[in-house]
Protein backbone atom coordinates (compact mmCIF):
# COMPACT_ATOMS: atom_id res chain seq x y z
CA UNK A 1 0.00 0.00 0.00
CA UNK A 2 2.79 2.34 0.97
CA UNK A 3 4.62 1.44 -2.23
CA UNK A 4 1.59 2.41 -4.30
CA UNK A 5 1.26 5.70 -2.49
CA UNK A 6 4.96 6.49 -2.97
CA UNK A 7 4.60 5.65 -6.65
CA UNK A 8 1.64 7.96 -7.15
CA UNK A 9 3.13 10.84 -5.17
CA UNK A 10 6.52 10.41 -6.87
CA UNK A 11 4.97 10.40 -10.33
CA UNK A 12 2.93 13.49 -9.44
CA UNK A 13 6.06 15.36 -8.27
CA UNK A 14 7.94 14.47 -11.47
CA UNK A 15 4.89 15.46 -13.54
CA UNK A 16 4.63 18.82 -11.77
CA UNK A 17 8.32 19.57 -12.25
CA UNK A 18 8.27 18.62 -15.94
CA UNK A 19 5.08 20.63 -16.49
CA UNK A 20 6.49 23.81 -14.96
CA UNK A 21 9.87 23.37 -16.67
CA UNK A 22 8.28 22.98 -20.12
CA UNK A 23 5.90 25.92 -19.73
CA UNK A 24 8.65 28.14 -18.28
CA UNK A 25 11.31 27.24 -20.85
CA UNK A 26 9.13 27.36 -23.96
CA UNK A 27 9.03 31.15 -24.55
CA UNK A 28 12.74 31.45 -23.81
CA UNK A 29 13.69 28.66 -26.18
CA UNK A 30 11.40 29.94 -28.94
CA UNK A 31 12.63 33.53 -28.58
CA UNK A 32 16.27 32.39 -28.73
CA UNK A 33 15.48 30.35 -31.83
CA UNK A 34 13.70 33.24 -33.53
CA UNK A 35 16.47 35.68 -32.71
CA UNK A 36 19.14 33.40 -34.15
CA UNK A 37 16.98 32.70 -37.21
CA UNK A 38 16.56 36.41 -37.89
CA UNK A 39 20.17 37.11 -37.01
CA UNK A 40 21.10 34.82 -39.90
CA UNK A 41 20.75 37.78 -42.24
CA UNK A 42 21.09 40.65 -39.78
CA UNK A 43 23.98 42.00 -37.77
CA UNK A 44 23.63 42.77 -34.08
CA UNK A 45 22.58 46.38 -33.32
CA UNK A 46 21.68 47.12 -36.93
CA UNK A 47 18.31 47.31 -38.71
CA UNK A 48 17.32 44.70 -41.25
CA UNK A 49 14.27 45.43 -43.42
CA UNK A 50 12.11 42.37 -43.90
CA UNK A 51 10.14 41.85 -47.11
CA UNK A 52 6.34 41.91 -46.83
CA UNK A 53 5.10 38.63 -45.33
CA UNK A 54 3.68 36.02 -47.68
CA UNK A 55 2.90 32.34 -47.22
CA UNK A 56 6.65 31.77 -47.70
CA UNK A 57 7.43 33.65 -44.45
CA UNK A 58 7.68 30.88 -41.86
CA UNK A 59 10.01 32.15 -39.16
CA UNK A 60 7.59 33.88 -36.82
CA UNK A 61 4.02 32.63 -36.40
CA UNK A 62 1.02 34.72 -37.49
CA UNK A 63 2.85 37.45 -39.41
CA UNK A 64 0.76 40.38 -40.62
CA UNK A 65 0.85 40.66 -44.43
CA UNK A 66 -0.07 44.37 -44.21
CA UNK A 67 2.92 45.41 -42.14
CA UNK A 68 6.45 46.24 -43.22
CA UNK A 69 8.71 45.07 -40.41
CA UNK A 70 12.22 46.25 -39.63
CA UNK A 71 14.10 44.31 -37.01
CA UNK A 72 17.22 44.99 -34.95
CA UNK A 73 18.77 42.29 -32.77
CA UNK A 74 19.84 44.02 -29.57
CA UNK A 75 22.94 43.30 -27.57
CA UNK A 76 23.36 45.76 -24.73
CA UNK A 77 26.33 44.03 -23.12
CA UNK A 78 28.65 46.71 -24.53
CA UNK A 79 26.46 49.67 -23.59
CA UNK A 80 23.39 51.65 -24.66
CA UNK A 81 21.89 51.46 -28.14
CA UNK A 82 20.06 54.29 -29.91
CA UNK A 83 17.20 53.68 -32.32
CA UNK A 84 16.03 56.38 -34.74
CA UNK A 85 13.00 55.60 -36.84
CA UNK A 86 11.50 57.90 -39.51
CA UNK A 87 7.68 57.88 -39.49
CA UNK A 88 5.36 56.79 -42.28
CA UNK A 89 1.57 57.02 -42.65
CA UNK A 90 -0.81 55.69 -41.49
CA UNK A 91 0.97 53.91 -38.60
CA UNK A 92 4.55 53.38 -37.41
CA UNK A 93 5.55 51.86 -34.09
CA UNK A 94 8.75 50.90 -32.31
CA UNK A 95 8.44 47.95 -29.92
CA UNK A 96 11.16 46.50 -27.70
CA UNK A 97 11.09 42.85 -26.63
CA UNK A 98 13.14 41.08 -23.96
CA UNK A 99 14.68 37.66 -24.49
CA UNK A 100 11.72 36.20 -22.54
CA UNK A 101 9.21 37.64 -25.11
CA UNK A 102 7.97 40.52 -22.92
CA UNK A 103 7.15 43.74 -24.74
CA UNK A 104 8.67 46.27 -22.34
CA UNK A 105 8.39 49.40 -24.47
CA UNK A 106 6.29 50.65 -27.36
CA UNK A 107 5.75 54.03 -29.00
CA UNK A 108 3.89 54.93 -32.16
CA UNK A 109 3.92 57.87 -34.55
CA UNK A 110 1.21 59.64 -32.56
CA UNK A 111 3.50 59.68 -29.50
CA UNK A 112 6.44 61.06 -31.49
CA UNK A 113 7.54 64.57 -30.67
CA UNK A 114 9.15 65.20 -34.02
CA UNK A 115 9.38 63.52 -37.38
CA UNK A 116 10.97 60.39 -36.00
CA UNK A 117 10.87 58.10 -32.99
CA UNK A 118 14.12 58.35 -31.07
CA UNK A 119 14.83 55.83 -28.29
CA UNK A 120 17.95 55.19 -26.21
CA UNK A 121 17.99 51.69 -24.69
CA UNK A 122 20.08 51.18 -21.56
CA UNK A 123 21.27 47.85 -20.16
CA UNK A 124 19.76 46.85 -16.80
CA UNK A 125 21.44 48.59 -13.89
CA UNK A 126 23.08 51.30 -16.02
CA UNK A 127 22.30 54.95 -15.33
CA UNK A 128 21.49 57.26 -18.22
CA UNK A 129 24.67 58.66 -19.77
CA UNK A 130 25.13 62.44 -19.77
CA UNK A 131 25.07 62.63 -23.55
CA UNK A 132 21.54 61.32 -24.14
CA UNK A 133 20.23 63.29 -27.13
CA UNK A 134 17.50 65.82 -26.32
CA UNK A 135 14.02 64.57 -27.02
CA UNK A 136 14.98 60.91 -27.00
CA UNK A 137 12.98 58.45 -24.91
CA UNK A 138 15.23 56.60 -22.47
CA UNK A 139 14.29 53.07 -21.48
CA UNK A 140 16.02 50.33 -19.47
CA UNK A 141 15.96 46.83 -20.94
CA UNK A 142 15.22 43.91 -18.57
CA UNK A 143 17.59 41.60 -20.49
CA UNK A 144 20.84 42.30 -22.35
CA UNK A 145 19.65 40.42 -25.44
CA UNK A 146 16.41 41.23 -27.13
CA UNK A 147 15.03 42.86 -30.21
CA UNK A 148 13.57 46.01 -31.68
CA UNK A 149 10.61 45.56 -33.99
CA UNK A 150 9.39 48.44 -36.14
CA UNK A 151 5.95 48.04 -37.67
CA UNK A 152 4.66 50.15 -40.53
CA UNK A 153 1.19 49.73 -41.94
CA UNK A 154 1.25 49.39 -45.71
CA UNK A 155 -2.03 50.90 -46.86
CA UNK A 156 -1.87 49.40 -50.33
CA UNK A 157 0.73 47.73 -52.58
CA UNK A 158 1.22 51.09 -54.34
CA UNK A 159 2.24 52.73 -51.06
CA UNK A 160 5.06 50.27 -50.43
CA UNK A 161 7.99 51.67 -52.51
CA UNK A 162 7.97 55.09 -50.82
CA UNK A 163 7.56 53.52 -47.42
CA UNK A 164 10.42 51.13 -48.15
CA UNK A 165 12.69 54.09 -48.96
CA UNK A 166 11.74 55.78 -45.69
CA UNK A 167 12.35 52.75 -43.52
CA UNK A 168 15.86 52.30 -44.92
CA UNK A 169 16.77 55.63 -43.34
CA UNK A 170 16.15 54.19 -39.86
CA UNK A 171 19.16 53.48 -37.65
CA UNK A 172 19.86 51.14 -34.75
CA UNK A 173 23.39 51.62 -33.42
CA UNK A 174 25.54 51.75 -30.33
CA UNK A 175 25.08 55.17 -28.67
CA UNK A 176 28.81 55.62 -28.32
CA UNK A 177 29.83 54.34 -31.75
Amino acid sequence: MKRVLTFVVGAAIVAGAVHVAVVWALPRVIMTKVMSAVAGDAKVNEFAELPLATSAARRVVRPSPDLAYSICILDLSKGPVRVQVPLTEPYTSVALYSSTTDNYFVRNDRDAKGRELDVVILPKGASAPADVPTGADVVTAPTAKGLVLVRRVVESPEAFPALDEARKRGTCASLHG
Partner: protein
Amino acid sequence: MKKIAYWGGMIVLGIALGLGSARMMLGLGQLDGGYSVGPWKTGTDFGSASAGMYTRARVALYGLLALDKKETLYYTAQTDDSGAPLSGNCTYVVEGKDLAARWWSVTAYGPDSFLIPNEANIYSFAKTTVKREADGHYIVRVSAERQQGNWLPVKAGESFDMTARFYNPDQSVQAAPGSAKLPHIVKESCK
Protein backbone atom coordinates in the same frame (compact mmCIF):
# COMPACT_ATOMS: atom_id res chain seq x y z
CA MET B 1 15.10 -5.48 -11.39
CA LYS B 2 11.73 -4.87 -9.78
CA LYS B 3 13.21 -1.78 -8.16
CA ILE B 4 14.26 -0.34 -11.53
CA ALA B 5 10.81 -0.99 -12.95
CA TYR B 6 9.24 0.69 -9.94
CA TRP B 7 11.32 3.88 -9.94
CA GLY B 8 11.69 3.94 -13.73
CA GLY B 9 7.97 3.55 -14.15
CA MET B 10 7.32 6.36 -11.72
CA ILE B 11 9.65 8.72 -13.58
CA VAL B 12 8.36 7.79 -17.04
CA LEU B 13 4.76 8.19 -15.92
CA GLY B 14 5.63 11.54 -14.31
CA ILE B 15 7.30 12.84 -17.47
CA ALA B 16 4.40 11.68 -19.62
CA LEU B 17 1.86 13.34 -17.34
CA GLY B 18 3.94 16.51 -17.13
CA LEU B 19 4.29 16.82 -20.91
CA GLY B 20 0.67 15.85 -21.50
CA SER B 21 -0.69 18.38 -19.05
CA ALA B 22 1.60 21.13 -20.38
CA ARG B 23 0.42 20.35 -23.90
CA MET B 24 -3.19 20.47 -22.79
CA MET B 25 -2.78 23.80 -21.01
CA LEU B 26 -1.04 25.33 -24.01
CA GLY B 27 -3.51 24.22 -26.68
CA LEU B 28 -4.70 26.88 -29.14
CA GLY B 29 -8.18 26.40 -27.70
CA GLN B 30 -6.80 27.88 -24.50
CA LEU B 31 -5.86 31.12 -26.27
CA ASP B 32 -8.73 32.89 -24.67
CA GLY B 33 -7.87 35.86 -22.56
CA GLY B 34 -11.40 36.17 -21.33
CA TYR B 35 -13.25 38.42 -23.81
CA SER B 36 -15.33 37.27 -26.72
CA VAL B 37 -17.53 38.92 -29.31
CA GLY B 38 -19.46 36.20 -31.15
CA PRO B 39 -16.79 33.80 -32.41
CA TRP B 40 -14.02 36.39 -31.94
CA LYS B 41 -11.85 35.94 -28.85
CA THR B 42 -9.19 38.18 -27.40
CA GLY B 43 -6.86 38.42 -24.44
CA THR B 44 -5.49 41.68 -23.16
CA ASP B 45 -2.27 40.58 -21.49
CA PHE B 46 -0.43 39.57 -24.68
CA GLY B 47 3.06 40.94 -24.88
CA SER B 48 2.76 42.82 -21.60
CA ALA B 49 5.29 42.29 -18.84
CA SER B 50 2.47 41.28 -16.48
CA ALA B 51 1.71 38.16 -18.51
CA GLY B 52 1.73 34.95 -16.50
CA MET B 53 3.73 31.84 -17.27
CA TYR B 54 0.96 30.24 -19.34
CA THR B 55 0.06 33.34 -21.33
CA ARG B 56 3.71 33.91 -22.10
CA ALA B 57 4.11 30.34 -23.35
CA ARG B 58 0.91 30.55 -25.42
CA VAL B 59 1.98 33.85 -26.93
CA ALA B 60 5.36 32.33 -27.83
CA LEU B 61 3.54 29.52 -29.59
CA TYR B 62 0.72 31.42 -31.28
CA GLY B 63 1.44 35.12 -31.23
CA LEU B 64 5.12 35.80 -30.67
CA LEU B 65 6.13 39.47 -30.72
CA ALA B 66 2.60 40.68 -30.12
CA LEU B 67 1.83 44.22 -28.92
CA ASP B 68 -0.12 45.36 -25.87
CA LYS B 69 -3.74 46.50 -26.02
CA LYS B 70 -3.08 50.25 -26.31
CA GLU B 71 -1.16 49.55 -29.49
CA THR B 72 -3.01 46.61 -30.98
CA LEU B 73 -5.89 44.37 -30.01
CA TYR B 74 -5.98 40.98 -31.66
CA TYR B 75 -9.23 39.01 -31.95
CA THR B 76 -9.13 35.49 -33.35
CA ALA B 77 -12.07 33.46 -34.65
CA GLN B 78 -11.78 29.71 -35.03
CA THR B 79 -15.48 29.17 -35.64
CA ASP B 80 -18.34 30.81 -37.54
CA ASP B 81 -21.20 32.63 -35.81
CA SER B 82 -22.97 29.30 -35.17
CA GLY B 83 -19.92 27.90 -33.37
CA ALA B 84 -18.91 25.43 -36.12
CA PRO B 85 -15.13 25.22 -36.75
CA LEU B 86 -13.96 27.16 -39.82
CA SER B 87 -13.23 24.79 -42.70
CA GLY B 88 -11.51 25.36 -46.03
CA ASN B 89 -14.18 23.18 -47.60
CA CYS B 90 -16.82 25.83 -46.98
CA THR B 91 -17.50 29.35 -48.24
CA TYR B 92 -18.22 31.97 -45.58
CA VAL B 93 -19.71 35.43 -45.85
CA VAL B 94 -17.89 37.87 -43.60
CA GLU B 95 -19.86 41.07 -43.26
CA GLY B 96 -19.28 44.10 -41.11
CA LYS B 97 -18.37 47.74 -40.69
CA ASP B 98 -15.13 49.56 -39.99
CA LEU B 99 -13.50 48.33 -36.80
CA ALA B 100 -13.10 50.97 -34.08
CA ALA B 101 -9.41 51.69 -34.58
CA ARG B 102 -7.01 53.95 -36.41
CA TRP B 103 -6.34 51.14 -38.86
CA TRP B 104 -7.52 47.54 -39.02
CA SER B 105 -7.06 44.29 -40.91
CA VAL B 106 -8.43 40.75 -40.94
CA THR B 107 -6.02 37.95 -41.89
CA ALA B 108 -6.56 34.22 -42.50
CA TYR B 109 -4.10 31.66 -41.10
CA GLY B 110 -3.75 27.94 -41.73
CA PRO B 111 -3.67 25.30 -38.97
CA ASP B 112 0.12 25.89 -38.66
CA SER B 113 -0.48 29.62 -37.87
CA PHE B 114 1.17 30.75 -41.12
CA LEU B 115 -0.35 32.57 -44.10
CA ILE B 116 -2.20 30.33 -46.55
CA PRO B 117 -0.57 29.94 -50.00
CA ASN B 118 -2.90 30.95 -52.85
CA GLU B 119 -2.67 31.91 -56.52
CA ALA B 120 -3.86 35.49 -55.93
CA ASN B 121 -1.38 36.20 -53.10
CA ILE B 122 -4.20 37.62 -50.97
CA TYR B 123 -3.88 37.02 -47.24
CA SER B 124 -6.08 39.67 -45.66
CA PHE B 125 -8.54 42.49 -46.10
CA ALA B 126 -8.10 45.83 -44.43
CA LYS B 127 -9.48 49.31 -43.87
CA THR B 128 -7.73 50.67 -46.94
CA THR B 129 -8.02 47.68 -49.29
CA VAL B 130 -11.51 46.25 -48.77
CA LYS B 131 -14.16 47.14 -51.39
CA ARG B 132 -17.24 48.61 -49.79
CA GLU B 133 -20.97 48.76 -50.39
CA ALA B 134 -22.68 52.12 -50.90
CA ASP B 135 -23.26 52.58 -47.16
CA GLY B 136 -19.61 51.84 -46.31
CA HIS B 137 -20.02 48.32 -44.96
CA TYR B 138 -18.20 45.41 -46.58
CA ILE B 139 -18.97 41.86 -47.64
CA VAL B 140 -16.05 39.45 -47.99
CA ARG B 141 -16.25 35.83 -49.13
CA VAL B 142 -13.80 33.47 -47.50
CA SER B 143 -13.35 30.43 -49.71
CA ALA B 144 -10.84 28.11 -51.34
CA GLU B 145 -12.45 29.07 -54.66
CA ARG B 146 -12.13 32.44 -56.39
CA GLN B 147 -15.03 34.77 -55.57
CA GLN B 148 -16.52 37.90 -57.13
CA GLY B 149 -15.91 41.05 -55.10
CA ASN B 150 -13.85 40.79 -51.94
CA TRP B 151 -12.20 37.40 -51.68
CA LEU B 152 -10.11 36.01 -48.83
CA PRO B 153 -8.62 32.70 -50.00
CA VAL B 154 -8.21 29.65 -47.75
CA LYS B 155 -7.19 26.06 -48.48
CA ALA B 156 -9.62 23.23 -49.20
CA GLY B 157 -9.27 20.26 -46.89
CA GLU B 158 -7.75 22.28 -44.06
CA SER B 159 -9.10 24.19 -41.11
CA PHE B 160 -8.23 27.87 -40.77
CA ASP B 161 -8.77 30.80 -38.43
CA MET B 162 -8.92 34.56 -38.79
CA THR B 163 -7.28 37.31 -36.77
CA ALA B 164 -8.68 40.84 -36.69
CA ARG B 165 -6.14 43.47 -35.69
CA PHE B 166 -7.13 46.85 -34.25
CA TYR B 167 -4.17 49.26 -34.52
CA ASN B 168 -4.60 51.92 -31.84
CA PRO B 169 -8.08 50.77 -30.88
CA ASP B 170 -10.57 53.43 -29.82
CA GLN B 171 -10.67 54.20 -26.11
CA SER B 172 -14.05 52.46 -25.71
CA VAL B 173 -12.70 49.19 -27.11
CA GLN B 174 -9.56 49.34 -24.97
CA ALA B 175 -11.69 49.87 -21.88
CA ALA B 176 -14.16 47.10 -22.74
CA PRO B 177 -12.75 44.65 -25.31
CA GLY B 178 -15.95 42.61 -25.11
CA SER B 179 -17.94 45.53 -26.51
CA ALA B 180 -16.07 45.80 -29.83
CA LYS B 181 -18.04 45.34 -33.03
CA LEU B 182 -16.58 42.62 -35.26
CA PRO B 183 -17.81 41.21 -38.57
CA HIS B 184 -20.28 38.34 -38.71
CA ILE B 185 -19.03 35.02 -40.10
CA VAL B 186 -21.81 33.04 -41.75
CA LYS B 187 -21.43 29.77 -43.61
CA GLU B 188 -22.84 30.04 -47.12
CA SER B 189 -22.11 26.62 -48.62
CA CYS B 190 -19.85 23.59 -48.25
CA LYS B 191 -18.43 21.03 -50.61
